[in-house]
């Protein structure tokens, strides 16, 4: 029994290693892909492009403009008239347009109410919303209105709201989901397609052992990939602080990968060829990713979706991982995440195992 388990296990690992392009692709996902995502996306106002038309001839208007600087804004670009500015906004070269009309300087000097016209491209709703609040703050500050309250804001666990660490971790979690589902499903479906599945049915080895060895080999491959990714990209390249326990993260990952492998087994039982695996994998994974709270906080979702999100293993994994990495939550307080991932992991794996076992 144990021997046939080990033999099948090693055979699967070797099969994986014998496809160099596949090994490369998996390595790419766990390293470069996570790195590119972390380095490339910043979902916060950065380098916002500003264009302006100044009919006042300088003075106050230029002083206001001098407050817009990097890294949030690119240097404001001057336009000759409103038409050109509008054209630039319509072509998406400029996101925010500021117009100082002739009355502006006069009114300001006379102490009357002066108006600045602002045009916002709100297709990037998030960026323009935050840009507008920056703008209001700049003007508020510029007027030196002495507000009696001073706000001291601190962002805990991630002082600069640095998105590299966050996005790279979020990307890694998606990669783990994607690969553990697809790789596990492929291992079985390939045999179905090749017809070697039927050969296995004739073998005197217990089918359960084969399923166990085949799926666990993929779990181990993914777990190793995860450790490589955390070590090289997240901790080394992005210098993410590890406020919690590394081994808690590995354990959490193991159970999460097990739950994805369970989904993979289910897909393998249903799908006939690799095209169906690819389609089904996307179809099943999308809801799991979207109910996980990575994109929308769970409490901001529709009540029905909030209930459904309880069934997304990624929900527990992502919040548990965030807690371990950033919040440095103590082991005792991590139990809800472990409970969720373990319960769903074992249930999903058991279900997939049963489902594919019926094919024998």
């Amino acid at each position, binding site marked *: 029994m144990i021997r046939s388990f080990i033999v099948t296990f090693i055979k699967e690992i070797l099969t994986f290693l014998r*496809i160099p392009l596949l090994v490369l692709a*998996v390595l790419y*996902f766990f390293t470069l*892909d996570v790195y590119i995502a972390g380095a*490339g*996306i910043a*979902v*916060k106002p950065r380098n916002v492009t500003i264009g302006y038309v100044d009919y006042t001839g300088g003075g106050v208007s230029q002083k206001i403009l001098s407050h817009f600087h990097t890294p949030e804004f690119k240097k404001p670009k001057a336009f000759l008239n409103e038409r050109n500015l509008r054209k630039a906004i*319509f*072509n*998406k*070269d*400029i996101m925010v347009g500021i117009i100082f009309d002739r009355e502006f300087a006069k009114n*300001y000097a006379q102490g009357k*109410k*002066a*108006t*600045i016209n602002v045009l916002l491209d*709100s*297709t*990037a*709703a998030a*960026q*323009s*919303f*935050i840009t*507008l609040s920056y703008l209001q*703050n700049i003007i508020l500050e510029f007027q030196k209105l*002495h507000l*009696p*309250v*001073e*706000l*001291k*804001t*601190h*962002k*805990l*666990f991630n002082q600069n*709201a640095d998105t590299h660490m*966050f996005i790279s971790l979020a990307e890694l979690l998606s990669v783990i989901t994607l690969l553990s589902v697809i790789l596990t499903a492929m291992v079985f479906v*390939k045999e179905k*397609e090749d017809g070697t599945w039927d050969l296995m049915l004739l073998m005197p080895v217990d089918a359960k052992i084969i399923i166990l060895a085949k799926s666990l080999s993929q779990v181990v491959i993914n777990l190793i990939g995860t450790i490589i990714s955390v070590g090289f990209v997240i901790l080394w390249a992005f210098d993410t602080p590890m406020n919690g326990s590394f081994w808690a993260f590995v354990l959490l990952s193991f159970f999460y990968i097990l739950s994805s492998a369970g989904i993979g087994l289910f897909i393998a039982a249903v799908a006939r*060829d*690799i*095209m*169906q695996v*690819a389609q089904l994998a*996307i179809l099943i994974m*999308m809801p799991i990713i*979207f109910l996980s709270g990575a*994109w929308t*906080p769970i*409490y*901001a979702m529709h009540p029905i979706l909030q209930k459904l999100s309880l069934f997304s293993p990624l929900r527990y994994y992502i919040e548990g991982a*965030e807690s371990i990495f950033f*919040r440095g*939550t*103590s082991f005792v*307080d991590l139990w809800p995440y472990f409970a969720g991932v373990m319960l769903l992991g074992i249930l999903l794996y058991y279900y997939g195992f049963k489902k594919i076992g019926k094919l024998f």
Partner: protein
Amino acid sequence: MRFRTIYAYMRKEFIELVRTKLIYLVYLVPTMILLLFGYGIRLEVTHARVLLIDNDASKLSAELIGKFEHSKYFAPTLSQVSEQKALRLMKQAKIDAIVIIPSSFEKRLLHGQKSEMGIFVDGSFPMRALTIQSYIEGTILKAAQDIGAKMGLKPKIAINQRTLFNQAMRDEDAIVPGLIGLVLLIAPALLSTLLIVKEKEKGTIFNFYASPLSKSEFLAAKLIPVFLLHSVTIFLLFILALYIFEVPFRGSFFLYWVASELYVLISLSIGLLISIITKRQIVAVVLTVIVTVIPGFLYSGILMPISSMKGESYIEAHLFPVMYYNHIIYDTFLIGQGFASQKNILYLAILVGFFLLYFLVGTLLLKKEMR
């Protein structure tokens, strides 16, 4: 080109596609992606869990707390816990932010003295942290301005803002058109990537090697059925965007249609190219996901406007077709300049270039012989 041969081969391909019973996935996957992402991505945060610690318990602090309670952005809790305990709650991910109103807050304010208010935001999800921070600061500043106005401080500069293209600042309007660019990149590529590599792995490719079918006839027979299937997707996505998500359509439908068909061709030829260079289906699937999903998200302008990119990412964005297509799509949906915009015409031409490039490279690499 012998059209009868192509037709016969095409029929065979089409029947094969239909026989894999999951053919409905061709439409289900795009629909699911659009619905889930469209409903799923909310950059606006509502019901943020803010813990208010009121050490003052005065009329002014109650007024301030009222501002939090009456906002849809917050689901505040009022509590007298110690800062230590509050921090633990945050570590357990039970609250997103803590606002501490200092003691003798009202007294100092009425005497015109400055008082400091502490705000602590959980930075684990940076974008969410920034959004919540700007909501909290905005709420307090607004309250302070109201109080300031009562005390005779009037602002001299007013901002008159006009939001273009998406006046209501709806997330749907901003995201759904971009999603069409994502869906039409992933779905056709995923379908076409297996077309040739599948035959290679199964060995049925020898039928083609041995048959008198020419390379171009083979490719046409392979691609036309998939192309026709996805031409329907273009309309499906359009209807979903318009009627489910109620995204306005202000531009030229003809432009939307032409650009989309062209874009499907590009996506198909990406899949085809991968299908030709790989030997195994699993590698083809994984590779396709890499080259479509990542640029589809990163360089599409959905999450980050192209004009805000810098350095490498700005250059990389220009190397993928998705940015050009999305520009046209946002134009047809929200802006409505259509063919009058030179940039649209230029980008359409660039898309034609992408298609020709991928397709030519693919055809050149496809060999009609044993390897």
